[in-house]
């Protein structure tokens, strides 16, 4: 297969940001060119959609990958069937799922199947994507093997073109790395002020995001339009990482560590649709899924300023009574220990 590759390293220098600070941004950098990145990591620059057109992949495969890209960047086309909030995959995985420090999705294609702490069994790529639908999209996943699932998987795997399977080095830019621990404990009031100063012009003071003429523009950081309580980004450290590495849009790492943690704490102290793993009791749910998940979210905790218990409701958002079929599905129960 021939893919038209651009030079691996693209460097932007002298970008003046925010309040006149100057930094060097490397989008797909070799780690050694980034003073803050450890050496000896797997650096992968995924192909672009232009590379796809120029490649010699089978025309039918190209069609399916294009469909996967389209689903990834306009997941709202599945609204009401698989998606019951205002999000697209690319709302969180910026740059079409390619960009480092924005949870680039090709990493899943070369590290799965693997054991996943969140559901305590070995997951493959489709099951991982199904998890995103159940939690981040507050939805019901397309069936395993369906056209949508195959197209999304194909897009993920194609993005990983050339990267080694089960790499023996850590992956550069994987996930949403959290900023350093802040000097002061994350604080609701400070977070609210920082949110209003840095975020609300797009995401609105009430966190509802923004639709223009019925079309989605800015995603909702909380509320019914947003991810539910079981989504990874409901964990404060993940939200802090997303914010620090990616926001405001176009200005990565422009906020202070403290601002990123405070804003994450504030956003994740707001309500969102119920966790689909809800047992009917928030304290019980928080305890059961504490070790694997909710110990790092604020779910079930009492908000200090108004006494509200977060997640103590049976609002599942637009999804209503639809149940994601993949949540709680047991796997590999009959395998022996040896």
């Amino acid at each position, binding site marked *: 297969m021939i893919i038209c590759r651009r030079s691996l390293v693209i460097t932007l220098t002298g970008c003046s940001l*925010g309040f006149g600070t100057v930094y060097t941004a490397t989008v797909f950098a070799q780690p050694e060119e980034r003073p803050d990145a450890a050496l000896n990591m797997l650096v992968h620059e995924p192909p672009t959609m232009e590379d796809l057109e120029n490649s010699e992949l089978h025309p039918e495969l190209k069609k399916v990958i294009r469909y996967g890209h389209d689903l990834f960047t306009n997941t709202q086309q599945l609204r009401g069937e698989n998606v019951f909030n205002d999000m697209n995959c690319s709302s969180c995985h910026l740059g079409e799922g390619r960009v480092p420090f924005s949870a680039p999705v090709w990493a899943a294609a070369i590290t799965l199947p693997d054991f996943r702490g969140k559901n305590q069994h070995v997951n493959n790529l489709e099951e991982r994507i199904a998890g995103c639908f159940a939690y981040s999209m507050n939805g019901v996943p397309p069936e395993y093997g369906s056209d949508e699932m195959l197209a999304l998987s194909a897009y993920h795997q194609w993005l990983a073109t050339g990267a080694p399977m089960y790499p023996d080095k850590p992956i550069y830019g994987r996930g949403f790395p959290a900023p350093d621990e802040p000097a002061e404990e994350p604080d609701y009031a400070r977070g609210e002020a920082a949110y209003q100063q840095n975020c609300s012009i797009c995401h609105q003071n009430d966190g509802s995001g923004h639709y223009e003429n019925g079309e989605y523009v800015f995603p909702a950081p909380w509320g019914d339009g947003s991810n539910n309580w079981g989504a990874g980004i409901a964990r404060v450290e993940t939200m802090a990482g997303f914010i620090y590495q990616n926001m405001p849009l176009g200005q990565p790492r422009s906020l202070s560590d403290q601002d990123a943690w405070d804003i994450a704490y504030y956003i994740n102290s707001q309500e969102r649709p119920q966790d689909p793993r809800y047992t009917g009791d928030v304290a019980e749910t928080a305890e059961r899924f504490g070790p694997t998940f909710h110990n790092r979210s604020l779910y079930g905790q009492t908000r200090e300023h108004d006494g509200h218990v977060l997640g103590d409701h049976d609002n599942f958002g637009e999804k209503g009574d639809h149940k994601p079929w993949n949540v709680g599905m047991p796997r590999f129960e009959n395998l022996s220990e040896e």
Partner: protein
Amino acid sequence: MNKKCLSRFGLLIGISIVTGGALAQQGDAERGQAAAATCTACHQADGSGMNVPNGESWPRLAGLNADYIAKQLHDFKAGQRQNATMVTFANMLDDQQIADVAEYYSQMPVTPGQGGDEADEALLARGQQLAERGDWNAYIVSCQSCHGPGGTGVGSTFPGVASQHAGYISAQLTAWKNEMRSNDPQNLMGAIAKRMSDNDIQAVSAWYATQPGSEEQETAQ
């Protein structure tokens, strides 16, 4: 637009009016027409402005968001946006007149953008790519991620750029790139403009000049 979105959009308008403060002063289009007499020499009676190759292009105002126009006029007066011609005219308007002319122009139907017709296919393709998908290898986010699908503008903060004149768009992006313009909120435009090459700027300017700026315009084409 479904009902939920409609009500949400209504709510947003409500919020923006409350939070817009002085900028949300209620304008009157009829009074605006009278106050706009001095504007028409450049911006034209139909608000279409003019693309001026090798000179200073005059932006289309017709159909732009009223609060956006008002903010720009206030910024010219306050020195937060620099333009030798505009500061003179903006200074002639008081706060009420600013609200009135802004309302007047916002109600006009969007007129066609000029200056993109001679762009070649490759330049337009690059423009479309930047507009719709960006170029993340250079950390250039898509224009539509803030200016909205089709680049027709989002709320009062992110102006419609589709069907704007190529000469005006490129002059503004170049001004941001060279730090001659900085009245955008939180440097959202400035950060991106600085990563755009001159060719990128020409490309998006030509692309948006050739795009419909409203549904009515799209239907007419």
